[in-house]
């Protein structure tokens, strides 16, 4: 087993590589033992409590052994809709342990995890970094048998996916499921053409072109990309930084995974263009831990691009155009999709958002002015520079120019990746994907909007239904309360815990929701859950808490009748406390029946 000292040395004894060091310790030892943390802390000049804080922040790091084979089975709503519970039961029965635990011999561990970016091929799991998709109870039993036989995880992979998923460096079961190709992401692109054209312009000229194209951030927030680059450029250097946000954690989104699998050159060239425009020579691809299986493939592409002079020193032969990219891996934390939390994580810390101002373009990675852009944004930027702004603006609608990549999953005939022009209505989208009988469509993931049929005329656009790309279709037979509950649980788990409304408030919302769902609510409970949800939105510190009540607030608005049906109209107040249930054990011990008149709370 590699010593901690050797691991730290291999990562240059650099604190910003702390997550990578912990990842190596976790992988070789099956957990992060206290003595390893003591040693890590000593070598990096940190306190052990500080190192422990980082270890315990990330879902894929653990103080307790997670099993020689650590199964992380996706627990998102789409996974559940695709038969997760039968698969989970098969894993448990075959392995002989429950989810949340490990087998007595420590060989197999079963764990829940948030959406792993495979929503169109659920149920899916990550086992020791290797992705398994479209799991069935039989597949689960076969996997457990292979684990018991000591088979290496990579040898358990069957039926490779399409495209680059079959390449030697990826070898993944993951399917791209590209259903509709569009002209921006999937249009022709000559590698090197974007940096060449950028280099012929002044940096300000590149920014102007992006501004003219009106490219808005594709991660969901929709901030103007040209403006972001300009702000970054205006700050005093000397060092600035470009970060590509590949943390794609919003449940139901998987388009960045497909872009990185099939079009990594476009993304990396977009980063180089951003670097040229913003005056940065340093690029970081922050890749979510769930996509670690793509790392070797991406490293190879980076190597190729350096050889082709698309990255490195004097790009395109232009003196002073220097830009290179390193990859940093996340380790299971949705909040790291928030740009300032991502920067903290890339620095090797807990992924906790920063206060703003100062904004990352002012003080970002290691204090350097930093522009953080989504994978799709950077890919689109490369194409805009390779073509021109007018070409890009000819697609989409005013204020939402160009195309958008959607990740479609749930109850529809053709789940997968769609490159559509902005302005498409939900109804048109449902026709496209084969989901016309939908009772609801979740646009933008749990943090987005639950859209009812009466609103299917609304459009995918920044000023109507904004989305980072997650589209989940719910058929007529689904219980939307189950959907909402799954989303709320997700936010409770993924809150970083920093601020009160998000940390404590989301737990309160979940409990109140359960009270309503169980039919113990009065009208007053509906009023309270709405007002508390608004409070959490208004007072939370970052985007996570500012959107976490959306599952409740948007379904309350779209489907008030579902809530009305659960409310007790006869009571002004219904207590949450169930006296009969609380007294049951005592009554049984005393051999009496419970006899207490329920108080009238009218």
């Amino acid at each position, binding site marked *: 087993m590699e010593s901690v000292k050797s691991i730290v040395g291999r990562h240059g004894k650099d604190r910003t590589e702390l997550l990578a060091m912990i990842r190596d310790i976790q992988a070789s030892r099956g957990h992060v033992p206290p003595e390893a943390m*003591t040693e890590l802390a000593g070598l990096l*000049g*940190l*306190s*052990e*409590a*500080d190192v*422990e*804080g980082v270890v*315990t*922040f990330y879902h894929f790091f653990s103080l307790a052994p997670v099993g020689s084979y650590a199964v992380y089975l996706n627990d998102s709503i789409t996974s559940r809709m695709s038969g997760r519970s039968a698969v989970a039961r098969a894993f448990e029965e075959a392995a002989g342990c429950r989810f949340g635990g490990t087998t007595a011999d420590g060989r197999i561990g079963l764990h829940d995890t948030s959406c792993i970016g495979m929503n169109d091929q659920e149920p899916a799991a990550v086992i020791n970094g290797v992705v398994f998709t479209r799991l069935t109870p039989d597949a689960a039993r076969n996997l457990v048998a292979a684990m018991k036989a000591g088979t290496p995880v990579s040898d358990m992979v069957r039926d490779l996916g399409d495209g680059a998923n079959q390449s030697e460096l990826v070898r993944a079961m993951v399917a791209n499921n590209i259903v509709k190709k569009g002209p921006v992401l999937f249009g022709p692109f000559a590698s090197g053409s974007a940096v060449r054209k950028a280099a012929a312009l002044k940096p300000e000229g590149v920014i102007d072109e992006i501004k003219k194209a009106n490219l808005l951030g594709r991660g969901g927030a929709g901030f103007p990309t040209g403006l972001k680059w300009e702000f970054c450029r205006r700050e005093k250097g000397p060092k600035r930084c470009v970060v590509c946000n590949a943390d794609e954690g919003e449940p139901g989104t998987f388009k960045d995974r497909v872009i990185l699998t099939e079009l990594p050159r476009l993304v990396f060239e977009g980063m180089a263009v951003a670097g040229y425009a913003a005056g940065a020579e340093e690029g970081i691809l922050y890749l979510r831990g769930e996509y670690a299986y793509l790392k070797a493939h991406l490293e190879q592409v980076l190597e190729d691009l350096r050889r082709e002079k698309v990255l490195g020193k004097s790009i395109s032969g232009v003196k002073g155009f220097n830009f290179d990219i390193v990859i940093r891996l996340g380790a299971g*934390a949705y909040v790291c999709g928030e740009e300032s939390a991502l920067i903290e994580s890339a620095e090797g810390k*807990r992924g906790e958002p920063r*206060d703003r*101002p100062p904004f990352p373009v002012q003080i970002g990675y290691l204090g350097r002015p930093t522009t953080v852009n989504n994978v799709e944004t950077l890919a689109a930027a490369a194409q805009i520079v390779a073509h021109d702004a007018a070409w890009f603006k000819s697609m989409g609608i005013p204020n939402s120019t160009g195309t958008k990549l959607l990740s479609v999953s749930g109850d529809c005939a053709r789940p997968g990746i769609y490159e559509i022009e902005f302005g498409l209505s939900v109804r048109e989208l449902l026709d496209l994907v084969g989901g016309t009988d939908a009772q609801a469509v979740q646009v933008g993931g749990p943090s987005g909007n639950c859209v009812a049929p009466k609103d299917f005329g609304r459009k995918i656009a920044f000023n109507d239904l904004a989305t980072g790309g997650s589209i989940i279709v719910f058929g007529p037979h689904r219980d939307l309360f189950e959907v909402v509950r799954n989303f709320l649980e997700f936010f*409770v*788990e*993924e*809150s*970083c*815990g*920093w*601020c*009160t*409304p998000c*940390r*404590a*408030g989301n*737990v*309160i919302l979940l*409990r109140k929701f359960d009270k309503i769902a169980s039919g113990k609510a009065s009208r007053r409970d509906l009023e*309270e859950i709405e007002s*508390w949800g608004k*409070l959490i939105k*208004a*007072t*939370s*510190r970052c985007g996570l808490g500012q959107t976490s009540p959306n599952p409740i607030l948007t379904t309350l608005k779209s489907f008030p009748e579902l809530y009305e049906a659960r409310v007790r109209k006869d009571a002004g107040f219904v207590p*949450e406390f169930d006296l009969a249930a609380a007294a049951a054990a005592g009554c049984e011990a005393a051999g009496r029946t419970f006899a207490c008149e329920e108080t009238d709370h009218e």
Partner: protein
Amino acid sequence: MSEIKFMIDGRECTGRPGQTIVQAARDNGVYIPVLCDYDGLKPVGSCRICMVRVGGRIQAACTQPLAEGMVIENDVPDLKDMRLAILEMLFVEGNHMCPTCEKSGNCELQAMAYRLGMTAPRYPFQWPDRPAEAADAKIYMDHDRCIQCQRCVRAIQTKDGKRIFASRDRSGRVRYRLDRHLGSKLSDETARKAMEVCPVGVILKKEVGFAVPIGKRKFDAKPIGSDIEETARR
């Protein structure tokens, strides 16, 4: 040094560049209720009690830099209820038993509840299981009372910048831990400082208790924030 003019609740005030709204308000004798903020420490905006409205937008006054011409709403009914609602979250997410707490009367959470007029929280109590830690020689940590303000993390560090207290875990499971190696090396003075900086009764110095009797403690005499407001009257 240039002066910044701003208004709070209709009152004209002046402040200095680099100040946060909380700091500038305080210098003008206006108290903005806040729990996580502490003089001399970098603000973290964690408690969210100090929400004010600036130009129609709700913001945390402890992290928001003061700007020229700001028109700030502070002591208005809807913001007061918002603060109370957040304060009540802190009460239900932990286990707060004032009558048996060493910090009663010196506790800023308790004082804030009196100041904001809290009676019973609007949410159900969560009664979490938060075991205390007593392994350290000098410090006893009662996690039941923690409001996650991170003052200890910020204030108590070694000379070379190592964190002696650090956050552990995430979401509602976050706890502040005393480093097991550095904790045992704390001087009496640092241990006392750690206890003082904690706004509630989490960090307690062992072997001293109730040195000042209840009834003669800081907030027994005057409500929290009144020291700031007195400077305005003077």
